[in-house]
């Protein structure tokens, strides 16, 4: 059907390359114009972080007391000093490593169970009708309320902490997967049926990829809640882990280590969310802009 193309439709048209390659200056200018928005955001982001650090520094150096008391809050420099000490301390690294391992097991287990369960519940009404009421009753219980029960349920401390982490991320993943399944466009299912797709391929080629964006939303939220639950569990019943480290620093009156623990939790949480976002982009190339 070349006729259609000759007449031409609105659509991506390959740009004609310029006859001579432009000078470096022109290229740099063009690159700047195209990326202006991103550069601006980065610049403002850096400035705002610097302002935050500066404010922290001033508030703690002058021990400001204005309703909120900064008297005992460590300064950024003190925290930095304890950071340089901590990275050479194998015990601190062990805390971090153990927390990461608990997140890895708890979160992975939650994803492995919740995603397929959500897909199956979304596809088969009976399974939904059986499991949904139980899930709805258990869902509002915060993971931290599970701590005493978890200690009774599981033989070791380690297992009960992983279990708490698992519970924290399980429900956000399940709920979002279910939501994704409920939004699958029925016309796409019909299209697949008209092309000869049977139940299995409809599940694999339509329902699953169509739900993926919501599954990844669930994984991101679930990862956040996993850290919240982990830290709470570690503070209560841990002997190791970054949550325990932070709580122990308070008990031992090592104020700089409290802030160090908090910052470490923040950085680890941010890093794990970025990992999930990256995985999402790998798995869903069609969503790249």
């Amino acid at each position, binding site marked *: *059907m*070349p*006729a*259609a*193309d000759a*007449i031409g*439709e*609105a*659509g*991506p048209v*390959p740009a004609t390359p310029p006859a001579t390659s432009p000078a470096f200056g022109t290229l740099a200018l063009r690159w700047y114009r195209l990326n202006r928005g991103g550069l601006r955001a980065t610049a403002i982001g850096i400035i705002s972080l610097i302002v935050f650090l500066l404010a922290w520094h001033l508030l703690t150096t002058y021990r400001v007391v204005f309703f909120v008391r900064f008297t005992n809050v460590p300064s950024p420099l003190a925290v930095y000093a304890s950071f340089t000490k901590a990275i050479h301390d194998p015990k601190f690294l062990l805390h971090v490593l153990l927390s990461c391992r608990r997140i890895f097991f708890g979160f992975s287990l939650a994803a492995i169970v919740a995603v397929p369960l959500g897909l199956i519940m979304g596809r088969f009404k009976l399974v939904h009708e059986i499991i949904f009421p139980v899930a709805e009753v258990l869902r509002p219980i915060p993971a931290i309320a599970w701590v005493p029960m978890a200690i009774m349920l599981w033989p070791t401390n380690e297992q009960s902490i992983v279990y708490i982490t698992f519970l924290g991320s399980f429900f956000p993943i399940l709920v979002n997967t279910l939501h994704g399944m409920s939004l699958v*466009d029925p*016309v*796409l299912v*019909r*299209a*697949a*049926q*008209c*092309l*000869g*797709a*049977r139940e299995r*391929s409809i599940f694999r*080629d*339509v329902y699953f*990829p*169509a739900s*993926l964006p919501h599954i990844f939303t669930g994984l991101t939220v679930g990862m956040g809640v996993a850290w919240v639950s982990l830290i709470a569990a570690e503070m209560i019943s841990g002997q190791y882990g970054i949550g325990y480290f932070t709580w122990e620093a308070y008990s031992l009156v090592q104020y700089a280590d409290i802030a160090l623990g908090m910052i470490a939790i923040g950085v680890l949480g941010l890093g794990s969310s970025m990992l999930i976002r990256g995985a999402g982009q790998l798995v*869903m*190339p*069609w969503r790249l802009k």
Partner: protein
Amino acid sequence: MSEIVAKAPQGHIEVRNFSLSYDSIEGPVQAVTETQIHVKPGEFVSIVGPSGCGKSTLLNAVAGFLKPTTGIVTVDGEKVNGPSAERGMVFQQYSLFPWKTVRENVEFGLKMRGMPRSQRERAARTLLGLAGLEAFEKHYPEKLSGGMKQRVGIVRALATGPKVLLLDEPFGALDAQTRVIMQQILTNMWQRLKISVLFVTHDIDEAIFLSDRVYCMTARPGSIKAEIPIPLERPRQQSMMMSSEFLALRRGLMSLIREESIKAMGGEITDLGMQGLNIQLHGASLADVI
């Protein structure tokens, strides 16, 4: 391509004593009633009618998505029991899989049939070439214009070599210029493949320009009001749309549909609203005036 062309003429659609109703709180609602239609092998047939008359319902029953309440739908004498790759379908909303590239979309039906990868890749490329889309085989549908998406939709539906092609207002979401081009493309493909086509539209010009025959449906509950053969010669040119023959057909269909549209909207139209249509109600009900 060759395997699609080299088929004996088949694709005889028959819909007999068809009616379809669904349950609501006020009791069963009749969507389509007392309908008979047929499409001969290789024929291009359109269904037009006012909105909500059940023309899409009828098409969905032929596709196998809906079961008739009474009556029977057959293709080549075989009863339609559910959707199948024998009846290709093109939807108004394009319905391409966003997570598959253009070529993967076209390959999907072949993959379902168990065709090996290299073979279906070749087949998909050939088909995309025919539709002028080979340069876009690796694109995701989101990046394409509406006209291109629907070309992919048609090519995808034809890839498995169906006996009949069902189209549900396929060009309804396109702008007027693209629509004309798409009609030409569809005509060309149909003539080349000698496939039976059942085409649902509310655009009268489109129906006349494309079809061998046009069924006009009544307002809900839908049934066939008239069957109009279109004796215009083929291949059809855009210039024919100005011919007196075309315009006469258009006038005839137009008045049939207008009657039904007014009936369908009767309850909602007031005296004031009718002034634009040059009909005076004088307090009488619309049905009386008509």
